[in-house]
């Protein structure tokens, strides 16, 4: 519905004349946007001057422009390191898995919770659902290790009920690691991520449901044909935002749960940056890796935005 009206707006006959006429009509918009622009430049764009350090052998003692320039040496160093590609692959895979799970679970949970009709139950479940969000990652990793340990509750369950002959060492098996990370993210964030969707559901016109009731729709049908489509703009926006974050696949989980036996699948970019950049006082290498991550993120977001434009969906810009 939104797209129709945009089309009319975009017919711009006399550009210049219209610009000034329009500008006069929106002083509030222009002034506040100017202030916010200034704010954004200072707090978000000015520090990005620091990207210059990726082309230097940065020593914090000297000013930004007094450094020794090394061109693309740091990027070469980065791409020559085999561990970097391993870490890149792992980060990307875990990022994508997390992204998919994040959406399926958060939306699914919001839809199901919306179907709970007893108010007390709804409130209770929701309150519980977002509680794990408040746990710090350090604590969550400890909980995961505990739950999956040899005498933890999962192995207890598998051995007593499913009849496994012996405890599974979940952290010694490469195949499990990404799924452990994915599930942990689901456990911690599902309830929290669902909040946005629950807020968006409140905006759905109740008339739609009433009309569906008249037509004799089942609850599942209403969920499928009313609630879910109404959430589409919200889903698209969050999807676009999060696509850019696939390379931020977490840190503590992989850092603490990973170990030498499974380091081939557990090592991620941020851990690599720590080992080869920051711990080595090589801030330039860390910046180079950061730029790499940003560039990938922007490519993904722009691509996503372009596709959204084509399909007529909600866009970021």
């Amino acid at each position, binding site marked *: 519905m939104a797209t129709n009206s945009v089309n009319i707006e975009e017919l711009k006959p006399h550009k210049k004349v219209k610009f000034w006429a329009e500008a006069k009509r*929106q002083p509030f918009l222009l002034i506040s946007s100017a202030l916010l*622009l200034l704010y954004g430049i200072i707090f978000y764009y000015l520090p990005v001057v620091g*990207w210059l350090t990726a082309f230097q052998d940065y020593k914090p003692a000297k000013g930004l422009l007094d450094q020794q320039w090394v061109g693309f040496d740091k990027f070469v160093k980065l791409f020559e390191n085999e561990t970097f590609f391993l870490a890149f692959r792992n980060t990307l895979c875990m990022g994508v898995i997390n992204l998919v799970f994040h959406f399926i679970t958060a939306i699914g949970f919001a839809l199901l919770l919306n179907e709970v009709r007893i108010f007390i*139950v709804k409130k209770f479940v929701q309150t519980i659902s977002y509680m794990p969000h408040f746990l710090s990652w350090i*604590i969550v990793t400890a909980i995961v290790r505990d739950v999956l340990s040899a005498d933890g509750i999962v192995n207890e369950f598998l051995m007593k009920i499913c009849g496994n002959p012996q405890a599974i060492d979940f952290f010694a098996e490469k195949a499990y690691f990404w799924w452990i990370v994915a599930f942990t993210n689901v*456990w911690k964030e599902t309830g929290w991520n669902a909040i946005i969707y629950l807020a968006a559901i409140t905006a759905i016109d109740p008339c739609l449901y009433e009309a569906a009731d008249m037509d*004799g729709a089942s609850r599942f049908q209403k969920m499928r044909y009313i609630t879910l489509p109404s959430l589409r703009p919200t889903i698209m926006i969050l999807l676009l935002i999060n696509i850019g*974050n696939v390379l931020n696949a977490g840190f503590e989980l992989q850092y603490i749960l990973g170990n030498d036996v499974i380091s081939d699948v557990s090592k991620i970019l941020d851990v690599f940056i720590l080992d080869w950049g920051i711990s080595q006082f090589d801030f330039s290498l860390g910046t180079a890796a950061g730029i790499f991550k940003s560039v990938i993120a922007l490519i993904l977001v722009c691509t996503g935005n372009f596709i959204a434009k084509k399909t007529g969906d909600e866009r*970021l810009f």
Partner: protein
Amino acid sequence: MKTKMKRQIHAGDVIFEIFLILFLVIFVFVTLYPLINTLAISFNDGFDTVTHRIHFIPHQFTTDNYKAVFAKEGYRIGAVNTVARTVFGTLISLAVNAVLAFVISRKRFLFKKSFSLFWVITMYVNGGLIPTFIVFQKLHLTNNFLVYIIPGAASAFNMLVIRNYMNGIPDSLEESAQIDGAGYFKIFYSIISPLCKPVYATIALFVAVYQWNSWFDAMLYNKMKDNLTVLQYELMKQLETAMKSAGSVEGLKNSGTSITPTSIRAAATICTMVPILFIYPFLQRYFVTGLTIGGVKE
């Protein structure tokens, strides 16, 4: 209300109901078990936790873990600062993001597209720790309370969530107000904002939780200023002292611990969680279905 009477009973609905109940039960157990377990451990003797498996209730009850967490003062100052930053940070951030989202969501706004892009980019680039520090230092934000509030006030993510909601509000409202001679500021505070309560509540919750849990900025920018410390930073310090998860060989030799990392961590967790849980009920009324803009929809 009357529609309820007319509703037909579907076979699918029964299956759906059973599925829903089953799901809720499993969900609640899986989510709650580790939390109750943490609560139990936090009230259990540290050394006893090592040797006995704790499930739902403490085996050897003690409040020592909490005493250990709060052994150091500094929590008092930290609590004041945390409450202050949560309250002011949330209000400021909500106001700024609402205005930002409003501006960007106006169809007639002249720089709509470029301004959106400007903010979207901020989500994916950052200059790194040291350059950011230097900028803040030049602005005299280091060793200053305002560093908790100003730098994070406008955030592209929060803006986008609000904008998305505002986009769902029919343009006719704005147009009719304009016909009545209302300026954009009036449209913002008297027409759009009242309709955005659920999303404002959501963002307020996000920001409040972020503010409450933040400690990294306190550590980074106000490290040497004891009177600007925040609660979570103090907790974090205690936690690291207890865990000594990394660091030098020599440091470890020079202290004896009697409280175990597990127990102190559990206590610290509970301390973090409990206060923030109280915020939600205040905001929850905005999430109730029915508070709607449907009445004005064409």
